[in-house]
């Protein structure tokens, strides 16, 4: 599978932006203690490959209660038009864990992924995202309050972080 980069961003730009996302996820996982080191490493490795292949549209991280209610969420929306963004530092995601809470992560693919054949998608998943599966989460947060608080950018590639809470 060949990845094409533009003259406005390249693989290093994606990696720099990904580093901020990866730091956020690691901080959430370690702070709450809801994911093992091994699990964190494999999750961010899968998302790194997805980002570098330019199939990534959004990443959603949820802190859910025992009943499945989303208590906190952080959503990362990819932009390839981020040249004017300031580059923030990751962090300030210190979620208080309650008994029975769990941490879940969802990715949404972009149009380039949709253009792949099913066989190509299956091959990519098998190679890079073992253990991942489909979800019925539709990406909406209902009445939860939201604020976009960080922009991670390197030249034209960026991720915008929006937080949702009750």
């Amino acid at each position: 599978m060949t990845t094409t980069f533009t003259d406005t961003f390249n693989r290093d730009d994606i990696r720099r932006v990904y580093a901020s996302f990866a730091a956020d996820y690691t901080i959430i996982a370690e702070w709450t203690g809801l994911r093992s080191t091994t699990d964190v490493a494999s999750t961010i490795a899968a998302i790194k490959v997805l980002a570098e292949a330019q199939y990534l549209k959004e990443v959603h991280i949820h802190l859910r209660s025992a009943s499945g209610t989303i208590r906190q969420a952080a959503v990362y929306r990819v932009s390839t038009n981020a040249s004017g963004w300031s580059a923030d530092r990751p962090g300030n995601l210190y979620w208080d864990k309650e008994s029975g809470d769990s941490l879940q992560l969802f990715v949404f693919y972009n149009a380039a992924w949709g253009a792949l054949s099913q066989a190509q998608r299956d091959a990519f998943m098998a190679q890079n995202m073992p253990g991942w599966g489909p979800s019925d989460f539709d990406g909406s947060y209902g009445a939860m309050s939201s604020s976009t608080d960080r922009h991670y950018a390197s030249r034209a590639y960026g991720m915008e972080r929006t937080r949702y809470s009750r």
Partner: protein
Amino acid sequence: MRLSDKELGNYVSGKLALPGDERNDYRAQVNRLLEKLETVLHEDGSYRIQKFRRAGSLEKGTSNRPRAGKPVDADVGVYFAVNDTSNFDITDLQRVIKKLLSAAYPQKNEDDFDDTGARTFGVVFQGSGLEVDLAPIVSLDADANYGLQYSRSGNCVKTSVKAHIDHYRDHAGRDPLLAPTLRLAKRWRYWQELDGVQSFHLELMLSYLVDRDGPAPTLEDSLRRLFLFVARDLHRGVAFGSADVSRFSDPLVIVDPANEENNVGARIESGEREALIVAARTAYETLTWAQGLPYQGETVSAWKELFGDNFSID
């Protein structure tokens, strides 16, 4: 990118640690001082000094190089035998130390003996830059293992130089990365200007993490878990064995491993504790972010924010 133990070790050994030969020279100088004092004690039986015990970073082998214009510190506990351990005058003991030093070093200038410290007596060796702090301690047992010492807050507390040294050696033996992590943490504390936080506090936090989580897998992980601990868990306090942090109401509680009734963090004020937590949170975020950066130069730049421009891995 992650920095390897070898790369971080280069920084620790090349820029931070007091070189082994210098450490040996300083320790030899302390030994000569103590031998001289022992000779005076032997010749003049009027002194009621039971034992000298070397303490602190120089004895533990965790001293960093002194900063420009600053001396290398060596700590020595001077254990006194007194008739009534509930009724003694610390200034009398300090006076005895000064008299002893004057007898041992008749050629030395009075200015070389610094008695301005609230609880210690300093001896400066102008040539080498070594400063030996002699702390009077009232011995509580025949082996001078435990004693009463005036704390920095002015209270008289039971403590043990021997127990502190043994505690450190036990933990350093279980985690070989404790010592280099402590050196890095001391440098970070200096560079972040975290007043009030002593090396002993950092050492006890790291020892607590060895007890709680086992030896750290890598030096970078060791440092990150210290910062995470400070940012997330320090407010709960640090205690060893069956010691109970809830008996203390100070902003920061670090129970003395030699005496569970003594909080060695008692002197830290709430503002100093908050500054420590904020700095640890920033450090934790910075190092976590640096792990994902694509190039070594970017990674090193991020580490420099925490340790200063002298940080290097070559």
